[in-house]
């Protein structure tokens, strides 16, 4: 599932769908026409691709999400940490924080997350 790659524009389109779902395909056509200047057929084609990749589904013209946005990007992050930091979360955080300081609120949020993760 984490193998799903999205191009930059595909990602923007997917974001648009996630933001507005459930939404009719004709609505999407109108939105992409405004946002991207796409023709009807183009919008349908890209939607088809996203559906094939397993992100969305089309039920009689109504488009809904199969995977939510958070799910999708978290999968990607996990995959990234796996590929780049050999699955080591601390290594990832260390790299992420390289040279930057976190605010008090951020530190608090992280502590709470750690507590929750430890419990389960």
């Amino acid at each position, binding site marked *: 599932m984490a193998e799903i790659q999205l*191009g*930059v*524009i*595909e990602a*923007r389109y997917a974001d648009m769908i996630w933001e507005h779902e459930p939404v009719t395909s004709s609505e999407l056509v109108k939105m992409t026409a405004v946002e*991207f*200047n*796409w*023709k009807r*057929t*183009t919008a349908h*084609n*890209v939607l088809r691709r996203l559906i094939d990749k397993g992100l969305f589904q089309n039920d009689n013209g109504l488009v809904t999400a199969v995977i939510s946005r958070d799910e999708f990007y978290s999968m990607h992050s996990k995959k990234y940490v796996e590929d780049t930091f050999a699955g080591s979360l601390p290594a990832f955080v260390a790299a992420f924080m390289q040279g930057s300081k976190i605010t008090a609120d951020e530190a608090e949020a992280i502590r709470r997350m750690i507590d929750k993760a430890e419990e389960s």
Partner: protein
Amino acid sequence: MGDIFLKLLNMSINAGWLILAVLCIRLIFKKIPKWVNCLLWGVVAIRLICPFSIESRFSILPSTEPIRSSTVVEGEVHHYIPSIDSHLTIVENTINPMLTESFAYSESDSAAPLQVVTYAAGFVWCCGMLLLIICAVVSAIRLHMLVREAVRVKDGIYICDAVKSPFILGIIRTRVYLPSTLGEKEMNYIVAHESAHLKRKDHWWKALGYLLLCIYWFHPLCWAAYALFCKDIELACDEKAAKDMTFDEKKEYSKVLLSCARQRSLIMVCPLAFGEVGVKERVKSVLNYKKPALWIMIAAAAVVGILAICFLTDPGRETEEETPLSFPAVTEDPDNQSTENIDVESGSIENQSMENGGESTEQMDDRQVSEDDRIDVMSRFMDIPWDEIEAIQNVGYYDYRFDKIICIGEIPEYDIRVYGYNDEDVSGRGVAIDIAGDVNYFDWYYISPRLIMPKLYWDEEERQLQMTIHIHTGTGFDAEDLVILQQYDTGTLGPHYFTYGDYSEILSERIGYSFDDGSRELTLTDTVTGRDVASVTIPEGEIIGIECGGISYFELGESIKLFVTPGFFREGSAIPDYTGMPVLEFEVEYEWVINQYGGDDLSFGLGDLVGIRQDGE
């Protein structure tokens, strides 16, 4: 098609020299700014586009038309035999004679070998050109489909997921397409480069270059020229974009070049692509770019100018004695009914028409023949289905008012029939001669109110048809024209005339006279032999002149005879008197000569005076 190809071939050979020169210049002058190179390619393009050119002494090209479709042998121009026009004696002495031999043909061939070869070559060329054009069109369509999902970023700049390497697409609505994965900095450099392309109108020049390549695909140097031209365009754009960059910026730009070059996965035929051309060289060029000194610019301008003069002009044609040819036209079968003689010189279809003799002031009919009448009558004649004409059984003129087609003569042994046409507007005009199935039409008047039919004689050996046409009538006027028609292998008849005007002119010099007032004897002399031929006693009146030819007729056969009755003019009478005059019998001589146009002609003359018949004989 073959002619076009031959012309293009010649143009490409001349352009080939130019391309070689440009290649040399590029090698020698590596420091010239690349936009000068593009100008040089522009000169090449002009050479390839213009079918005509100015002649000048400074032309370096060896010849205007390297491959000629005609050759000169002993001063005579032979068309449709190729020859190579170079100034090398080797070529003149070995290759050209070989060409003459292998492309030889005879007059009766329907097409010269050269015509066949050039037509075939032209066909192949056309196929190649179409193939290349189709390639470009298909490629363009595929790219357009690819960028359907592109999204506009700025005016004319689009990003697209499927695009791996930036390129420009479109001639009219030109757009720059960038990969969607570009960072902002990278994007700026690339946009700078592509904008430089657009400002220089490179998308048009490259398309033009490709079009020229489609046309001249058969010339290998043209491919080299196109490839180098594309390279020069890219380099020139790099220069333009890098002109105002700092060294650090140039480094960044090179990095972008490298990254985009690696991702090349599309093979694009036509549009300008960023990573398409030699990246290493481009990086070097960008990093080392320095604004060129003034003297280099001047030198560059001079080089381009000289090149243009030397190669855009032609050395001038060698003056050939262009002699027009008449080709024996192919006769079609009678069911098709349209045969013409094509006269190359005038480039028009010559209606074979007789000239009615020079001195015939006393023709009974005065028909005004305008150009339109001439064409109308014959086309109406030729519209008549041949079976109708063939069906006419009787020979002779029954009633010229009612019979549209009459048979005016025949030689059944040789299957020869001659027909005359009576048009509703103009009667007695239009002749069709059928010799064993080969039909020829002639725009002649063939009859007079005296209704004397033509005489015919066929010389089987010489394949000549002799024909008399009796159209000169009037008071004291009763003369025929002679026409000898030579039949060619194709079935065409070539007419050769000996008209009243011709022989009366000869006779006026040939026959002299003297009149003895005392004896009232009019003596006629043959000025050629100097001998007296006849004497006639004229009882009264003062003789002021004689006339020769007004009363005459021919006898056809292996040797043709002209029988002339001279007449004399009495003072006070405009009409000659023929009373008591003898009939002089002349031999008609004719032989083949080359006329002023280089074609064959029968030349007529009067030979010996072989007989004299006095009244009562």
